[in-house]
């Protein structure tokens, strides 16, 4: 079966579990149809390009683009020893973007997801930030996932403080996300540097988790948004 991710030459039809994506010729253009059991999206494409790129994108666009931040709550808290480096694997929700490729640039025209979006507040009501919310188990090896629904973050935790720290959540800035995929896994490598029991800095490494994985399009780069910072400082607790 052809993987949903990657470049697809027009016209095409992809059927994967509970989704059908097709692009058919219509008059002088194409018609893009994305169909799931509860939703049907149709868009007319007037383009001279003959390729569409589908890939996982930063999971902060749906239901609405109201925040660039993703908060992952851990099902079980992690106790991290002082002055140590640890590595765990957590899951993140996947959103899939459809792009036109124009001379190395990618223009996004559709985003969809199979996971239920939810939002939360990180911090207090006055100074906090709204974040996309996801709850994940904590694994010591790469867990098996459905690549259309969930990806895996290798979270490298470095406790720089001189005390034991309990980590219950991680907040990430999607501006820095570097997503890689292959036909079995969607992944990111993230870092969390714990400064004390309530402050940590998170960021991402631009590297694949497994050699040979393809890099996804960064949606903020494709939207030509100027990024102020790619890191996030968790000042309201970890």
């Amino acid at each position: 079966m052809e993987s949903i991710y990657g470049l697809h030459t027009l016209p095409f039809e992809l059927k994967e579990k509970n989704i059908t994506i097709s692009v058919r010729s219509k008059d002088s253009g194409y018609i893009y149809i994305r169909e799931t059991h509860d939703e049907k999206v149709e868009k007319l494409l007037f383009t001279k390009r003959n390729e569409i790129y589908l890939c996982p994108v930063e999971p902060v666009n749906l239901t609405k683009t109201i925040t660039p931040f993703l908060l992952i709550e851990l099902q079980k808290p992690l106790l991290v020893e002082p002055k140590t480096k640890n590595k765990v694997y957590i899951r993140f929700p996947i959103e899939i973007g459809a792009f036109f490729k124009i001379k190395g640039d990618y223009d996004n025209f559709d985003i969809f997801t199979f996971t239920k979006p939810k939002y939360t507040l990180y911090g207090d009501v006055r100074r906090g930030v709204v974040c996309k919310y996801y709850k994940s188990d904590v694994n010591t090896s790469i867990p098996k996932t459905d690549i259309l629904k969930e990806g895996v973050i290798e979270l490298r935790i470095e406790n720089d403080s001189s005390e034991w720290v309990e980590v219950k959540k991680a907040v990430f800035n999607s501006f820095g996300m570097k997503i890689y995929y292959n036909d079995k896994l969607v992944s990111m490598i993230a870092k969390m540097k714990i400064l004390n029991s309530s402050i940590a800095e998170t960021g991402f490494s631009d590297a694949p988790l497994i050699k040979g994985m393809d890099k996804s399009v960064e949606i903020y780069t494709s939207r030509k948004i100027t990024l102020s910072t790619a890191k996030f400082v968790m000042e309201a607790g970890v």
Partner: protein
Amino acid sequence: MSIIQNIQPFTLLKAAIILSFAFIISKAISIHLRRSLKDRMKKDHIELIVKVTYYTIIGIALLSVLPMLGINPSGLLLAGGIAGIVVGFASQRIVSNLISGVFMMIERPIRIGDSVNIGNIAGVVEDISIISTIIRTFDGLYVRVPNEQVFTSSITNFVANPVRRFEYNIGIRYSDDADKAVEIIKNLIDEHPLALKNPEPQAFVDELGDNSVLVRVRVWAPSTEWYGVKIELLWRIKKTLEKNGIEIPFPQRTLWFGNELKMMGKE
């Protein structure tokens, strides 16, 4: 010529130093104002403030060195003072608006794009100029509010905080299962993406009313989205409760009579 000839070189030097110092100070303040107001005001408004500040400092310095040069500025001050009073009276409100505008730029209780309520005017801030603030009311009207009025009114900024809470009071019949109703409501809140996970939403029996058991529901949502979430969720709750046989009762009263009424025609 005679005045200048009578001036001591030291006095001339002192006047030159004061003027130079005033020039440097006014330049420094101008640069500082430009930098600090860059993100808060429009460029033309900044330039206006910078020029007024610059020439005020230079003017004060000039007036202070005139006596050193043997020129009595009292006549000038008198004429200027009278002119100032006339202009001051004429432009009292404008100056008041201008100063209010400057203070608003510094305090920043509202920003362009914010949903606000200023006095009795509610809407979206379209523009904040040095004299007035433009509001587009929620029904699409253009309202220009002088900054003095904005500054002295109580301002409610609906989007100053990232999230806000809304509340429902939902009455159900005494014969309905209140636990089930609460569970249904909690599930509906959980299913709505924009009903925030944290701060935690609440649904609980709050009151045993005259006509119904009152379930209070409190939900937090992003400030920019709360109204849509509020109306959407309320309708979902109503429909789902009804679907599960839980009804929102009409006000009703059961009357008990001391003497049993005898129905006409039955005897």
